[in-house]
Every structure is written in structure tokens, then in C-alpha cells.
């Protein structure tokens, strides 16, 4: 019995780490697993480029999920884990692009267009002549009264 247990322990220890985490096999520590999933959801799968690595069934996504969990277990904080991936694959893997000079156009052009449009509208409305403010003549006043009476 004891021999069998020792043999099992040795076999388990000898198993290559590559077999470790399938998406269904999560980290035993739920807080760490939650962090791993949150990070995985921010990262684009390089193979199916509109999926996060947490969603993708691609082999590479699986490997990156395993790496994220390994880095977290090794004590990396979330930023360090994300940097590990962006160091190798670039900012493109971030599903939410960072705000940096290369992405200013992406982030701020909608506001610039809004401001331009608002300025245009303001200038246009300001320059348009105001509607005439003359008093109604007798005919018009009678007509108005008739309409009001009809309404009641």
C-alpha cells in the first residue's frame, strides 16, 4: 500500500507541466483563478483574433492561459502578467487598447468630431436670422381665437 502510494506520488511528480491546466481545470485558489480569468478576458487570442484567450479553443490560447496561471502562482501581479504577454506579442493583444500617443487618434477623435460638430452647429444657429417678432394683425388674431374655441 505504502509502496503504491509512493509510486503514485513519484509518477505525479514526473508528469510534465505541459499537461497542467485545461480551461476546465482551474487553479485551486478561487481568488487567483478569478484574477487569471479577468486577465485572460483582456487578452486577444492571436489565432482567432476576435476572441479572448479565455474564450478561444486555439492551442496557443490554451498555452497562454497556462502561462497566466503559472505567472500568478509565481507571485506576479496582474500588470506583470499582462506585460509578460505584451512584451512578446505587442499591444495588439490587449482587447482594450491602451491610451498612448499611437492610439490618441483612436481614443480622442470621436470627441474631436463631436466638438467640431457642436461648434459648427453653434455658429450656424447664431448666424441664422431670428424669426420676425411682429404683433399679429386683426385677421390673424380672429383666426387664432377661432382655432382656440374649436379646440375647447
Amino acid at each position, binding site marked *: 500500500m505504502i509502496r503504491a502510494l509512493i509510486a503514485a506520488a513519484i509518477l505525479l511528480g514526473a508528469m510534465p507541466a505541459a499537461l497542467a491546466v485545461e480551461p476546465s481545470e482551474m487553479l485551486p485558489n478561487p481568488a487567483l483563478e478569478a484574477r487569471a480569468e479577468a486577465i485572460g478576458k483582456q487578452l486577444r487570442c*492571436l*489565432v482567432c483574433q476576435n476572441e479572448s484567450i479565455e474564450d478561444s479553443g486555439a*492551442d*496557443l490560447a490554451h*498555452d497562454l492561459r497556462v502561462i497566466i496561471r503559472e505567472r500568478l502562482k509565481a507571485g506576479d501581479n496582474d500588470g506583470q502578467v499582462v506585460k509578460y504577454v505584451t512584451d*512578446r*506579442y*505587442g499591444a*495588439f493583444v490587449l482587447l482594450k487598447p491602451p491610451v498612448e500617443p499611437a492610439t490618441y487618434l483612436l481614443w480622442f477623435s470621436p470627441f474631436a468630431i463631436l466638438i467640431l460638430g457642436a461648434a459648427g452647429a453653434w455658429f450656424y444657429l447664431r448666424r441664422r436670422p431670428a424669426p420676425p417678432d411682429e404683433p399679429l394683425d386683426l385677421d390673424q388674431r380672429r383666426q387664432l381665437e377661432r382655432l382656440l374655441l374649436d379646440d375647447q
Partner: protein
Amino acid sequence: MSWRRAIYLLPLAAFAALAIYLSHGLAPGYNPELLPSAMIDKPAPAFDLAGLKGEARLTNRAFTDEIVFVNFFASWCVPCRQESPVLMDLSRRNVIVLYGIDYKDKPADAEKFLQQYGDPYRRIGVDDSGRTAINFGVYGVPETYAIDRTGHIRWRHVGPLTDDVVKNEILPLLQRLGAS
């Protein structure tokens, strides 16, 4: 026409500029899935891989003082078969020094692949876990990297190498790196 009138042409001009910019995305041969490498101009990642066919291990320390090309391939990869004549030609004519990294493959399959299509590599490392590939920023085989004499990655190509890539990229690259 006064500038007050001209201002009404501004939206049209803006639209034209945007249309010209966006039309680049429709150009033939444009592939939005091709990504620039984050590893360009960085030192090649360290690795130490078992050799194929019981050869010596392949490590990044083998790349000393020469310009080397590292080709990630696999026997299960169809485009790798497509590029193999190009690699064979480069290696036969001694145009480049080429190392292979066999990505997530069975060694027996890789050997069969090399027998069938030819072995253009000086030496081959076996990247069973795919970790070395990830450290290089590989997202699919085949990918080819050029490493200069100082051990920095200077060039990367995604997908099969073609004669056009050799002519338009590899030969000028060799000239540039050789001159510096």
C-alpha cells in the same frame, strides 16, 4: 469663392480623406491579421531545446557572431511544405544560415517530413511545449526570424517564405545587416 463658402466643402474633403485612408484596407494582398512583431530589435529570447534525431541541443548561444535565421515549422503544417523548396534553395546556395525549431511535433513525424521535403537546417531544436515559440512571439507556423551578430531580432516573417520575400526582404536585409 470666399472662405465662408469654402468651409461648406470641409465635410466633403474630410470624407474624401477618410475614404482614401480606408480604401487601403481593400487593397489586394492586405491581410489585417498580419501583426507586427513586438520582438523586433529586442535580444532573441534564451532557449535550450533538445535536438532532433538525437543531435546536440540547440540553444540561443549557438548564434554567435553571424546572422542567423530561425524557422519555426512542424510536420503537420501545410504552408511549411509550401515554403520548403524556398528554404532548400537558400540553404543549398548558402545564402543564409538557417536553424529550425520543430513546433509541437512528434520527432518521428518531423523526421519523415524532412526526408520527404528535404532538410535545409543546420540544426533543429524540438519545441515540444511551444514555450520557446511563445517567447519569440510566434502565433502560428511557419514563422521565420532573423537574428543579427549581436543576438538581436531584426526581422520576422509570418507565413511561408516565397521567392518574392527572399528577393524583396531577405536579400536587402542581409545587405543591411552585413554592412553594419
